């Protein structure tokens, strides 16, 4: 079997390598990929959309449909994760609590609980007990800056590398970092499961709603220049602002999806104890 698959891989590789003989050489400005629509984007994007970062302009304006459905794919992947894994109403058979002053760990079997808000006990995870003051303190210090940086990346996507996808992933990573450094329950207290689901849907709604608003104002779907009538700016500026709205929608949807995938994968759908 191994020999057979090695033969397949080598054979396909040889066919592909044979085909590269006809490909343009590396870094060739006259290659077919760089000669059709790409020069138009590079030369006209700034005057048509007023966005200096052409990647952002192409992503959210010229190829707006593509990006909208990519965002929908991400949302669908998050929903698939939740549907596959999420288990409701399953209570853990055992719980562990740590007495805060002495460090004594208590093992509780059955459905009994110790109230966690009493301040003398804290619930700890069954399999893995993250209790490291250095990691906790550094993450507590780091997470606000991560989130601030994510907002910068989303908002500054017009002028520097960045945008909704990157900023959304950083925002999601900050919540995942909280779950890793403390535990899953702490991060769930900050951002609940229902909030995550609502945010994922809200992100798609912002994107498609911006497109629908353009129709209502007399333009085509996702033709942001129609927004000029309510934003009271020139049509070119309106396209720039429409791209910002869309990027925010993408960021919210991506953040929520990343958190939902992590929460369900880390705890196998129980959302109780996890990594």
């Amino acid at each position, binding site marked *: *079997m*191994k020999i*057979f*698959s*090695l033969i*397949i*891989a*080598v054979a*396909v*590789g040889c066919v*592909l*390598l044979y085909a*590269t*003989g006809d*490909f*343009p*050489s*590396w*870094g*060739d*400005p006259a*290659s077919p*990929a*760089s000669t059709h629509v*790409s020069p138009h*984007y*590079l*030369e006209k*994007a*700034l*005057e048509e959309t*007023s966005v*200096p*970062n*052409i*990647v952002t302009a*192409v*992503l959210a304006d010229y*190829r707006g449909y*593509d990006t909208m459905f*990519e965002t929908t*794919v*991400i949302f669908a*992947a*998050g929903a*698939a*994760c939740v549907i*596959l*894994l999420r288990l409701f109403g399953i209570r853990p058979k055992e719980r562990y609590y740590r007495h805060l002053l002495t460090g004594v760990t208590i093992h509780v079997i059955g459905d009994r609980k110790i109230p966690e808000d009493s301040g003398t006990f804290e619930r700890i995870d069954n399999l893995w007990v993250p209790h490291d003051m250095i990691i906790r303190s550094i993450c507590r210090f780091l997470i606000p800056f991560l989130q601030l940086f994510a907002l910068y990346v989303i908002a500054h996507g017009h002028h*520097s*590398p960045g*945008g909704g*996808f990157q900023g959304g992933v950083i925002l999601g990573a900050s919540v995942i970092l909280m779950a890793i450094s403390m535990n899953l329950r702490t991060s769930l207290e900050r951002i609940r499961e229902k909030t995550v689901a609502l945010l994922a849907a809200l992100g798609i709604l912002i994107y498609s709603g911006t497109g629908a608003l353009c129709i209502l104002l007399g333009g085509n779907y996702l033709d942001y220049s129609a927004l000029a009538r309510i934003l009271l700016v020139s049509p070119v500026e309106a396209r720039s602002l429409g791209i910002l709205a869309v990027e925010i929608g993408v960021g919210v949807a*991506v953040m929520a*999806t990343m958190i939902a*995938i992590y929460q*369900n*994968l880390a705890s*196998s*759908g129980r959302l109780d104890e996890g990594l």
Partner: protein
Amino acid sequence: MQDLIREIVAGYNYWLYIVLMMIGLYAMIAKGNLVKKIAGMNIFQTAIILFYVSIGCKKGATIPILEHAPHGAHHAVRAADYINPLPHVLMLTAIVVSVSTLGVALALVIKVYQSYGTLEESEIREAMREAKTAEE
């Protein structure tokens, strides 16, 4: 020999992506463990991303972010001075989509592990065969 070396140097990005892609393809076919197959799939996706980004490259060009002069006073832009933004746009979305599909794949793997207690392809097939004969 000299021709071959010249060809490799002119298109070494293609050689790299094909080698990576074949490593991924081999892992997807040959490995018995489902997580290793998923790792192979991810290597395959990375090879595609490398391929796309490398065809957008132009020699001596810079990143496609222009200088923004106020009041619409733009300089004329020469397309040869900026690398092709299109592959970057396509791959930007593909990276995030590949992460979320990885999430779905891992969710499926967790479900498979919960019902069969193993991730080895041969053992899963054995268990399925036994369940089938037990039904009959």
